[in-house]
């Protein structure tokens, strides 16, 4: 079965999604930084740091991890496809020989 994708590469949409998750994490860190810097009251700074900065850092780590995993799966799939093509060529050569 040949997987089809609008982008040509079936891994591209998922890689974009995981990159967007990591980018969203950076945006959350920036928002948390801005909110914490806007006030001098610690009670207002703590939620901004926890939700924005720590939460954003978590998103960055998760997004980067998923991106790396998907990238490895993509390379493994290409390698597998090359092996499959090589096996098919070898099998075709053996069949021709027998004939």
């Amino acid at each position: 079965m040949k997987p089809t994708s609008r982008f040509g590469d079936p891994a591209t949409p998922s890689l974009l999604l995981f990159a967007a998750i990591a980018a969203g994490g950076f945006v959350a860190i920036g928002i948390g930084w801005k909110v914490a810097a806007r006030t001098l009251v610690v009670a207002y700074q703590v939620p901004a740091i926890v939700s924005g900065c720590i939460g954003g850092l978590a998103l960055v780590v998760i997004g980067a991890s998923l991106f790396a995993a998907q990238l490895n799966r993509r390379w493994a799939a290409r390698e597998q496809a090359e092996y499959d093509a090589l096996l098919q060529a070898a099998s075709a050569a053996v069949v021709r020989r027998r004939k």
Partner: protein
Amino acid sequence: MIRRVLAAAGVIALAVGVASSAGAADDAKTVTITPSTEAWYQPNPTCGLPVGCVTPASVLALLPVPVPVDLPAVPLTVPLSPYPTGTMHVAYTGGRETARAYLTIPHDKLDGEIVSASLEIPLDTSPASGSAVPQNARVQVCTFSSDIAAIEGSIENPPFTLCTDGPELKYEATPKPRLHASLNSIRDALRTTSGIALVPNADAVTATDAWHVAFSTHDRKGATGPAVLTASVRPVAEEPAAEEEIVDELPSFDEFDPGLDSGLDFGSALVPELPVDGDDLGGDVAAPVTPASTTVESGYAYGVVWLLPLVLLLLVPIIARSLTKDLRVS
């Protein structure tokens, strides 16, 4: 002929008026005044406790035994300033005022009619002094009529201020960061009040404002200069002494007969009998009244964040599908 005389008289009167006003303007002299005493106050940090606000005076009142009179004088106001000594502060953070400053203005140089006045405050913009975004400061000049002691970071109740017509200080970055304002709207009050108070402008600040301005006291060495009040003062002409003939017309005291022997009974003097000792007071002295703590409701700054769990819920199956999808390219 009459018209010519009237015209000439008008011209002469106008000339005399101009000459007198010019002469009066020349009489005004410019004086610069630095505060003689500075103090800054901050909210009592213990007011959020369930027991209410705690002050040194209230702690002393709760002692089971009275403080011996022969102990050295202990100041009832404990300074709690986390900033360098010799700095004054005005700050607004998180929807509430966190610092205000009081400057006592000596009146020895304000002897006369104040024609104009202005205030300039060089700012200490060092973060170590507590300064934070002073360019966003909204500081208003008010007046107060109490005696203050030189103290930094007092948590006692600050003196009452009158902010009617009080101008707002404007921030100027060049040549050096400073706050500047014209005090013409309150120039008359400068002579009749103890000094000026610098407080956050309640009509201009918003709940999200956060700023802190710091400046030096008059006796702080090696730093930015203190606040300076510049005034143009015109000496008041002395009134002529009252004529003695008027005084002589008043009857002398010896001639006054109050009529004490007329039989009127004014009653006994209304002098209350003071108790000799404390037992007559009828009980223990009431503890000082502490204001109840206030609760401020603050909503969510970003309500859309509540949708994040739903977004994550949708992302989980998408991510799972992506991680199990066949990625081989034909």
